[in-house]
């Protein structure tokens, strides 16, 4: 069990910045995110695109903003559990919460801050009959351990970077790689497209374009797929089918936590501290809603800041504290580092 002061669900900009504000109040944070990397929408959807409305940054690439946030919070030593989704929450007698991930990992915290954005990113599943039956029986939406595919036949579907990149990678591992896409054009980095072309020419990747997987067959495990090629159906024997059609955010299990939900977002008290209807659980950033809500990064930063003040009161009831300016008081990291403004020189002039 991982114990911490504030468990933050979501490593988007809001969740990351909350670590900083909590750190100023000497509160420790642990962050849980279902994606393998921090940054939320910025890393998953637009890492190379510029943002123009971060105060003080006339222009900043989304990926750079995430890197800067990671640098800014480093001295507060947040714990990270990536690639796991928060699944359930239970309130304990002592008022703390235990959150359990989809992999069974448990986290205990006095305060839970949901910074889940538009939700946890889940694979987009193609509309093929019985596809759910074959999940874990030959249908995979993620590739976690490529060794699983060693000397197996693999069919990949999709037209973007991940379909291209995994086709290239698996062509050295699998006994047979077939890439299927609804048209001949692929949208991906130029060198990935060229690499696939080379491997196709060398007979190491089979391509079916235009083609669409329309059926899955097999008694216990996937044995073959049906592909629609210009209206005609072809059966292709395979061990694995990997549809890579990108990720889409879904509020998912958090919707069943007893929180008040409105328009796919969690209702919070915006006049005060962004607490939900369950005391001790806060919702900050894109995941919350209140009158006048705007889903912007800078609004998430503000919400995270106020949330931490309220969290401090819950974690340290009655203990006095006054908000300080970082310029004036400096920052004491949990890692022993100290940052402070250089002192003015006091020297007499003779």
């Amino acid at each position, binding site marked *: 069990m991982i114990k911490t002061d504030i468990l933050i669900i979501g490593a988007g900009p809001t969740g990351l910045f909350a670590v900083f504000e909590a750190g100023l109040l000497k509160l420790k944070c642990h962050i849980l995110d279902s994606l393998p990397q921090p940054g939320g929408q910025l890393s998953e*959807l637009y890492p190379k695109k510029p943002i123009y409305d971060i105060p003080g940054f006339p222009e900043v690439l989304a990926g750079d903003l995430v890197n800067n946030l990671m640098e800014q919070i480093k001295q507060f030593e947040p714990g990270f559990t990536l690639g796991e989704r928060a699944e359930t929450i239970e309130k304990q007698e002592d008022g703390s919460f235990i959150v359990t991930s989809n992999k069974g990992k448990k986290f205990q915290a006095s305060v839970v801050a949901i910074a889940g954005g*538009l939700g946890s990113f889940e694979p987009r599943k193609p*509309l093929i009959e019985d596809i759910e039956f074959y999940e874990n029986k030959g249908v995979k939406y993620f590739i976690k351990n490529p060794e699983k595919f060693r000397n197996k036949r693999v069919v990949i579907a999709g037209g*973007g970077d991940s379909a291209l990149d995994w086709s290239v990678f698996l062509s050295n591992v699998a006994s047979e790689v077939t890439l299927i896409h609804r048209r001949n054009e*692929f*949208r991906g980095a130029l060198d990935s497209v060229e690499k696939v072309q080379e491997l196709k020419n060398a007979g190491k990747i089979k391509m079916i374009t235009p083609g669409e997987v329309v059926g899955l067959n097999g008694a216990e495990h996937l044995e073959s797929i049906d592909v629609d090629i210009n209206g005609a159906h072809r059966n292709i024997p395979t061990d694995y089918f990997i549809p890579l059609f990108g990720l889409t955010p879904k509020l998912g299990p958090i919707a069943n936590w007893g929180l008040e939900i409105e*328009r*796919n977002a969690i209702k919070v008290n915006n006049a005060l501290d962004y607490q939900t209807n369950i005391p001790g659980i806060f919702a900050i950033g894109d995941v919350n809603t209140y009158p006048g809500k705007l889903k912007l990064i800078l609004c998430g930063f503000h919400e995270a800041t106020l949330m931490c003040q309220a969290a401090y009161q819950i974690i340290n009831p009655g203990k006095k504290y006054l908000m300080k300016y970082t310029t004036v008081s400096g920052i004491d990291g949990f890692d022993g580092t100290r940052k402070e403004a250089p002192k003015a020189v006091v020297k007499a002039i003779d």
Partner: protein
Amino acid sequence: MTQDVTIKITDREGITHEVQAPTDMNMNVMELVCAYELAPEGTIGLCGGMAMCASCQCYVLNQVDLPERNEDEEAMLSEAFNVKDNSRLGCQIYITNALEGLEIALAPES
């Protein structure tokens, strides 16, 4: 003064709404649907209008002179689900005077 155009949008429940769309606010059809709250938040415009998610897919129901699909739109539609010949991405269609009288239906959520 620039004029609004009238667009008919059938939501995912099958209800048709006739809405006024401003031509001078640099808005696209996805944003119009959001502004009139014709689809629940979190079910449309997920990529912010970058032709990267297809959550704004709609079917064009009448003959109106629309700009051709661009490269990104073609690429996204070739990976989307429930695609038909008259599918378009709402976020790639900007509201101009040419859209007067346009009728569209939102594609199912996927």
